[in-house]
């Protein structure tokens, strides 16, 4: 999307229309697009994080988090600058990282007052913990001692979640679909999940997070992207329940307040370029779908979802800032930078 060029073009059109009977018609092109439903509606800034791609290139923009200083941290699998840090206005602050060819999952955890990043690397077949400055402090290697894998190539971690006690959960979303449960030292405590079609198994266990909305009873939310499903497990790996979102290929759950935000990479029959963003309420029901159709529940559950307006190609992650604006990182979207959605 070449927005600036377009504005210039429509600007000329608008001037041309001065002589036209209706001056109002000339104003119409500037009606801002608002996407989403109900209480979660957004205006769009397609150019939010755009940078000079000859200096700060991206391939896939996989995931984003906001750090304790309020900065937006983007992870891309371009090894010239795996990590790009912006302020919330989209201004570049700094970049680092050249050794994460398969940079995919990005989780931020505050430990003793300091921010740490957990990077799931598809190509290195391991998870790397770093400081916000890029210093590597710990590696969670291929879990040979799990007994589930024959070689590192089978293990393709996509996401991590860190519990209040420091335990680390890793989802092997592109590998054999197991969830690894480590303690903070990196000792493997438990393995659960695995590939399969039943409730307690996964097809593309792509994202994982800790659900602390019930403060006394934390649990894990894990996406089964190909199953269009979000599954809840106890912290010790017992399947509890699932929420189905037919037609929504959800990437990872991100919780802010009472809502769950999920980038939805494809929709409908899974065709290319059909993504949108899914927002769930405190009951885990889809209530707003920016870029998608209005969520509608019947006694059979959610009516199948599909894209309605072509804002996104392949949303891969949503970051929610302190003002509840969203930043959408996209996979396979022409090496474009993240899009900002401004809460209305």
């Amino acid at each position, binding site marked *: *999307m070449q927005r600036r060029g377009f*504005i210039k073009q429509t600007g000329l059109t608008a001037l041309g229309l*001065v002589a036209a009977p209706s001056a109002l018609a000339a104003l119409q092109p500037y*009606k*801002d*697009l608002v996407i989403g439903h109900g209480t979660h509606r957004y205006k769009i800034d397609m150019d939010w994080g755009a940078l000079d791609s000859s200096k700060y290139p991206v391939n896939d923009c996989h995931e984003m988090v906001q750090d304790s200083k309020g900065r937006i941290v983007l992870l891309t699998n371009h090894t010239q600058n795996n990590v790009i840090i912006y302020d919330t206005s989209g201004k570049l602050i700094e970049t680092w990282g050249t050794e994460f060819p398969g940079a995919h999952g990005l989780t931020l955890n505050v430990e003793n007052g300091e921010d740490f990043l957990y990077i799931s690397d598809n190509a290195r077949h391991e998870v790397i913990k770093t400081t916000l400055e890029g210093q590597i402090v710990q590696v969670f290697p291929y879990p040979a001692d799990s007994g589930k894998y024959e070689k590192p190539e089978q293990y393709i971690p996509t996401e991590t979640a860190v519990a209040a006690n420091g335990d680390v959960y890793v989802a092997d979303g592109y590998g054999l679909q197991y969830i690894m449960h480590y303690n903070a030292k990196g000792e493997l405590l438990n393995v659960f999940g695995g590939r399969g079609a039943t409730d307690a198994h996964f097809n593309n266990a792509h994202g994982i997070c800790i659900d602390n909305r019930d403060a006394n009873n934390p649990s894990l939310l894990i996406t089964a992207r190909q199953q269009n499903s979000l599954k809840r497990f106890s912290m010790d790996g017992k399947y509890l329940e699932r929420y189905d979102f037919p037609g929504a290929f959800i990437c990872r759950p991100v919780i802010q307040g009472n809502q769950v935000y999920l980038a939805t990479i494809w929709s409908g029959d899974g065709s290319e370029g059909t993504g949108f963003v899914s927002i769930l309420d405190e009951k885990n029901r889809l209530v707003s779908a920016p870029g998608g159709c209005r969520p509608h529940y019947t006694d059979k559950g959610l009516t199948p979802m599909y894209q309605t307006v072509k*804002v996104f190609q392949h949303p891969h992650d949503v970051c929610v800032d302190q003002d509840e604006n969203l930043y959408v990182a996209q996979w396979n979207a022409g090496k474009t930078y993240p899009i900002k959605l*401004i809460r209305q």
Partner: protein
Amino acid sequence: MRSVFVFLLMIPLVYGQQFNAMSEFGLAPPQLWASSQLFTDSVQVQLQLDYPDVQIRYRTDGQEVTESDALYNGPLTLTQSSQIMAKAFHPELQSSDYVSMTVDKIRYDIRTAIIQTSERPHESYKGLGPSGLVDLKRGSTAFRGNSAWMGFQTDSLQLILRLKSPLEIEEVKVGFLEDQGSWIFGPSHIVVFHKGDAVGAVLYKEAASSQAKEVALISIPIEKGTYTELSILIQPLASIPDWHDGAGTTPWLFLDEILIN
């Protein structure tokens, strides 16, 4: 006076740069459902795009849809083979790409026929087994996890079709998928036999050159006659052509349906 007016118009222009305007985005194509892509009497077609102020317009003759074409305002009942084309329009957003689907009227419902395949489909693309080839259900281009498709990697495939009772037949149709990006090619040659004699054949010359992603149907005219058993020999391309990344390897052959008329 005029320059003042121009200046006033510039204000929303500058202010508007913070967010993206409706006119910069397009609608997604409408959703399109048919009660069945194959039918003997009639078929019901539904279109939907749940977005305020959208108008869906359509044609049934495969021609490009314009703003002057028929406005969709409820399910359509079609009684003839049709190529439905539909597009969504909006006063402020750009119109959508078109969505298209072919529905074919067929003479015979042969869901009771028995069909056998000479080769086993690949473990990942077993479809519903051979009976899925006569279930009157077509597949879609999203072939992964779509049970309509049987996927084969073979240099030749023979299908034996046994009808429950004799039927007058002059045409056999074979439904296949073309998606060269996924290494799936159409058949190059199909011959229909009856009791060992060839009764019809067709060459699909475009199999090697086509770069489509579509659910296709090829017609094989056969000697008009009354048949209860036919043998259909399908020959895929011997190897993936030179222009393709997979040059020299065995292409995939994906089948979803056998029809007779």
